């Protein structure tokens, strides 16, 4: 049992770090590129929720949308790679991925733009979203990450 738990912790830690890596890189690339904008992505949104993205474009400053997107990506990236406040990171990640999924859902009849591979109902965004759910349920920062120091500190203080 103890052995299995350890294996699970290592696997989930690995998952957490790779997802963090992915989000962090996306965030940094966008942050350093002043020409990047989410406009095209939002403007081409389709499916049952396209009205929401059209509304966003028409009513919210695109600069604000861009900044929020970068901040959210960085929050997930930093909390996951460093292993601290990862439950917060997981919630932000789930929200962000849900928006990405709804903007371009892999539903039959919709044209899939800029994607490799073939998808039906489920795509990589949805899978990564569920992976964030796992991170939320099984925080591993206390096994590998800044949380380890925080928790240990508490433990030391307790004794």
């Amino acid at each position, binding site marked *: 049992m103890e052995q299995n738990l350890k294996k699970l912790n290592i696997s989930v830690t690995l998952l957490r*770090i790779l997802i*963090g*890596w992915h989000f*962090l*890189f996306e*965030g*940094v*690339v966008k*942050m*350093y*590129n002043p020409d990047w*904008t989410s*406009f*095209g992505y939002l*403007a081409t949104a389709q499916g049952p929720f396209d009205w929401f993205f*059209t509304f966003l474009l028409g009513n919210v400053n695109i600069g604000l949308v861009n900044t929020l997107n970068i901040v959210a990506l960085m929050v997930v*990236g*930093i909390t996951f*790679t*460093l*292993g601290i406040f990862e439950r917060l990171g997981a919630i932000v990640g789930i929200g962000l991925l849900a928006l990405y999924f709804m903007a371009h859902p892999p539903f039959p009849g919709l044209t899939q733009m800029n994607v490799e591979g073939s998808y039906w109902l489920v795509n990589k965004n949805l899978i990564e979203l569920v992976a964030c759910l796992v991170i939320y349920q099984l925080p591993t920062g206390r*096994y*590998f*990450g*800044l949380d*380890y*120091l925080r928790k*240990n*500190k508490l433990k*030391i*203080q307790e004794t």
Partner: protein
Amino acid sequence: MKWTRRDLLIGLGGLPILGAVWWAGAAKVTGSRSSRDEILEQLNITPSLPLAVPGIGGEPVRIGVIGFGIRGEQLTRALGYATPQWMEEQRLANLENPDHKALEDFKRQEKLNVKLVGICDVFDVRAENFINSFSTEDNKIKRYLTHQEMIQSGDVDAVVIATPDHWHAPMSIEALNNGVHVYVEKPMTHTVSETYLLREAAAKSNAVFAVGHQHRQTLSFSTARDIVEKGTLGHVSLIQTNTNRNDDNGAWNYDIHEKASPETIDWEQFLGSAPKVPFNKNHFFRWRKWWAYGSGLSGDLLTHDYDRLNCVLNMGIPSSVSASGGVYTHNDGRNVPDVIQVNMEFPNFSTGSSQTNGKEKGMTFCYSATLGNGFNRPTIIMGHDATMELGNRLTVWPDGASTRYADMLEAEKMRPNVPIYQYDPAASSTDAVSSATSQYFADKGLMWTYIDGVRVDSTFLHMREWLSVIKNGGKVSCGINEGFDEAISAHMAGLSWKLGRRIEWDAASEQLVPVEGVDFDQVLLANENWNEQPEMVG
């Protein structure tokens, strides 16, 4: 509290990952940006900004419209006047598709200092529609039964001519001779001799003469001119430009109005110099299909592509033209070809060379058109150093064997399949295009241009420029000289197709090289199959 090295390793293990990913992301972006900046610095292309046009001050320009058909209505909208019927159609189209913004664009259009005072249209329904739509209590619009009457009335400062081709020159000349300003649709003339007569009239007149090649206002074309002038493309040896349409509207089979009859249409006046044939609705509404009134692909659509490129390259009249094609896709009684290939030769033309002086010279302009397939073949300008795709968007690719970019290609800073320059003024716009034919014009940059990301009707800009020159003096961007180049080149293409031989231009004498036993104007106006055409209506 004391942490062991093991504690720190477990606690801070994520930090180097974070650092590495951050560094890699930043390096990727700044690296690709700096190599892009290096290329852009070397190319030194300046995206064009809209020209400041002096205001149209003083008393409003009093305008008479001659011809209120499809194009006439569009030109009138460019002047700021839309019929209630059109506005209602656009409102409904917008309800169906929120991206359809024609009405919004129209309402946003700057108001020009003009007053519509007269209409001349041989079809009662159209003339009445004009009056009912635009006449007000303070401004009663007058209907003139002939263009002479309108031009000589003294009540009209300027005329907008949107009639069949065979009326363009006679009306323009009449107006110019009477000091009335002219905006005439393309092609400027219907025959070779008219082209000279009109040039003479324009030279003698004080009135401002403009040809309706509105794409001269398109910003991507002035940017393209900068690209060519800076030697970005090197020596251009070939231009490929095309018409690809596959719908009724694109093949000029326009709707026939239910109220059309010998009672509502002044048929004799419509015919003018054309052969006297009995009343025919098909001819009246679909006149572009016969040489008697129109000029088919060579006059109607080649002229757009020719002038678009003449505006970018300033290559002038070709030294020779050969054309081939036929009536292959719409065998409906028309006698203008629906498939045509036109090769125009410019043996002495040069856009500059990156190689040894004199090694490169000469260019072929190849126009290829069909009304039987709508696949989008873009306009491509092919140079020794680079290739440019020309439309509302511009894209430039380096050529793998370029002399100018050899070093950068060697260093893999450029790659033949990766564009080195892209210009897309509409990148942040989601406007819808309503039909296949409008998509065709929009892709070519013939319908609108983008100023600060906002779409602007280029016809409006073209009209505004003409009106500004009327009030303030200056030069219109498509005047008599540009129109002369366009008309002669188009006539050469038409003649070549009709005669099945090469037509040559003598630049020194500014004359077509005569062909023994051939009267060019007679050939241009000749109507093969004239009596065989069925009465096809609907």
